[in-house]
């Protein structure tokens, strides 16, 4: 008998497809929005806290500590101002911590291009799933998601692009050689294209390779092969846009490397005393750099996010209540419209209780469909939540 109620309810809902779909969508969203939002927030909290906790100290330009954290830990597009490599040298020379400089100014086909020293891979426990880590200038290794997004494998290549069309100051596109793809780490490293720090400086134009210049006339008083030579070349000199075994020796850097730009330095203190002493160095107000604890910055950021989350919860309760009232109204109005139909069922011999069971069956089917839909949406959040967080919240 119960089956007949559900059969009739099913037939009724199938006949009024649009109305049923709207009711299911409303109910699903009512259930999904608060649960999905909390699932995303929990994912975000887990990711941000884990990454921040694994990064004890961060040295960068004075200014927004949130920007610095997002730049160095999540390779955010809102890049923090650059500092120089000298800061990394200072951290290393202190003897209190090991420095991991990184430079994340550039993006390549939408993916963050991050210059690091090889120590970064050891520290983050990143190992190639395929191929090898970069060995030579111009090599790159792709994060798991970056490789999938770019459709590249070891042995392929990809070219950098000048930052804008008006970048005529000599920043040449550089063809990078893909040497490997990193194993999935479930962190922002999955989305990055990693190169050696020196390669980012070549991309920036601080280092370059070019044809051998013709030496000026040999100094007559110096007969032997190592005689001094004054080489003059002009702007027509061909600058290489790909680093190969044949031309790698011609690549060189100008000026003192200590003055080269980096985004931040991850400082790995040897012990608690070292961390305290290192932090003390940056207490002076007149310095141009700051040291931060990403865990504290992230905690503050998450606190704000959760406050916003609580606000969302309040709004969602109000919206949910309103939606429920609206749905109740819609349902009662539809019952009025169906008065003649229900009267006919009664006149055919069905009891009032049977008519009531029919309506309840319709409601049950609508509820079941909504539960299935919101469940599917929650599963999607569970599966893709981490990458959505990285893509939309942290980039």
């Amino acid at each position: 008998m119960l089956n007949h109620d559900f059969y009739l309810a099913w037939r009724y809902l199938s006949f009024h497809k649009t109305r049923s779909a709207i009711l299911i969508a409303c109910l699903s969203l009512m259930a999904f929005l608060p649960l999905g939002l909390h699932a995303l927030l929990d994912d975000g909290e887990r990711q941000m806290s884990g990454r921040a906790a694994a990064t004890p100290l961060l040295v960068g330009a004075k200014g927004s500590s949130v920007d610095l954290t997002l730049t160095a830990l999540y390779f955010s597009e809102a890049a923090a101002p650059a500092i120089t490599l000298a800061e990394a040298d200072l951290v290393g020379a202190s003897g209190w911590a090991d420095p991991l400089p990184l430079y994340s100014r550039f993006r390549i086909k939408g993916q963050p291009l991050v210059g690091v020293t090889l120590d970064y891979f050891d520290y983050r426990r990143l190992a190639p799933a395929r191929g090898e880590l970069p060995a030579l200038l111009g090599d790159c290794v792709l994060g798991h998601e970056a490789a999938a997004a770019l459709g590249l494998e070891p042995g392929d290549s990809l070219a950098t692009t000048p930052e804008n069309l008006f970048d005529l100051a000599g920043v040449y596109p550089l063809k990078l050689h893909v040497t490997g793809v990193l194993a999935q780490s479930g962190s922002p490293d999955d989305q990055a294209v990693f190169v050696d720090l020196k390669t980012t400086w070549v991309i920036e134009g601080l280092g370059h390779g070019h044809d051998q210049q013709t030496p000026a006339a040999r100094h007559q008083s110096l007969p032997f092969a190592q005689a001094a030579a004054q080489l003059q070349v002009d702007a027509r000199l061909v600058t290489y846009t790909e680093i190969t075994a044949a031309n790698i020796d011609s690549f060189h850097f100008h000026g003192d490397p200590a003055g080269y730009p980096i985004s931040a330095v991850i400082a790995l203190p040897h012990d608690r005393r070292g961390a305290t002493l290192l932090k003390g160095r940056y207490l002076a107000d007149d310095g141009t750099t700051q040291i931060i604890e990403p865990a504290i910055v992230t905690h503050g950021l998450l606190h704000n996010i959760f406050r916003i989350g609580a606000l969302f919860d309040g709004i969602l309760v109000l919206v949910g209540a309103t939606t429920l009232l609206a749905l109740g109204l819609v349902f009662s109005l539809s019952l009025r419209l169906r008065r003649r139909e229900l009267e006919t069922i009664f006149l055919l011999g069905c009891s009032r209780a049977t008519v009531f069971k029919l309506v309840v069956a319709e409601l049950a089917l609508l509820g079941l469909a909504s539960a299935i839909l919101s469940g599917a949406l929650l599963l999607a959040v569970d599966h893709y939540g981490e990458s959505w967080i990285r893509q939309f919240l942290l980039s």
Partner: protein
Amino acid sequence: MPSVIVRLALSVFLLTARGVQPARADLGTAPLRIVVSNYPLAYFAERIGGSRVQVTLPVPAGADPAFWKPDAKAVGLMQKADLIALNGAGFEKWLVHVSLPKLKQVDTAEGFHDRYIHIDNAVTHSHGPGGTHSHGGTAFTTWLDFEQAARQAETLAQAMMRKRPEFTASFSENLAALNADLKALDSDARRILGGRTDEPLLASHPVYQYLARRYGLKLESIHWEPDEMPAAAEWEALAKLLAGHPAKTMLWEAEPSAAIAARLKTLGVAAVAFEPAANRPESGDFLGVMKQNLERFGRIR
């Protein structure tokens, strides 16, 4: 009942796992893998580390490490090492072109970087809006000053101890023995070379700058290869140089060909091999080669 069996099995597994722990701890006593960029550093590392280190010099036999360039395979080998020992002073010109973990590197000459000898005739060029710039050169055969060699060994030992603190006592003891040998070598060099500070000398290659500075040699360098007969113009230039710098002895990185030695003899110049030993010698070791160098030099009068 099944839960009791599961618990028993779990206990046995955990006990077994705990029993395996000491074996895991033994991984820490595996040899310290050191990759070095020249033979003197290989010798120092082997003397200091003994059986507790595995030293690799990736430069092929017969090649000059100062002009060798690592390929991707050699770089991969260095990346996997526990310690990368570099000579410094511009010896590793390839360093700028490769990706190596910075925290594994030790620049053994960094401690006396203010004492580097800079080569004056460095190439200068200009292009683009940046103006002129220089690829300045630095003399890199730092170990031919045996006091500097001892400092390099000391720096290397410190880095090894940082990597394997549990071997500090052993490394320190071996370092002391090495230092004593280098000190004795330095004394010998001062006795043999230092006694001839007024004598003009020639060098076939500009690689003896630190040797000349430490032991007060009046040395002029040219750029000849031991197995390539110089052109007539270069012989003429040498004759002119000898007019102002009447050297009777010329130091060579390796024994020059008989023809070159004979022609030098006609100019009154004796050829003496003073091998820098930048690469692993076919026989003997660093100390042995340096002692032979000093003995050969001492025999020439």
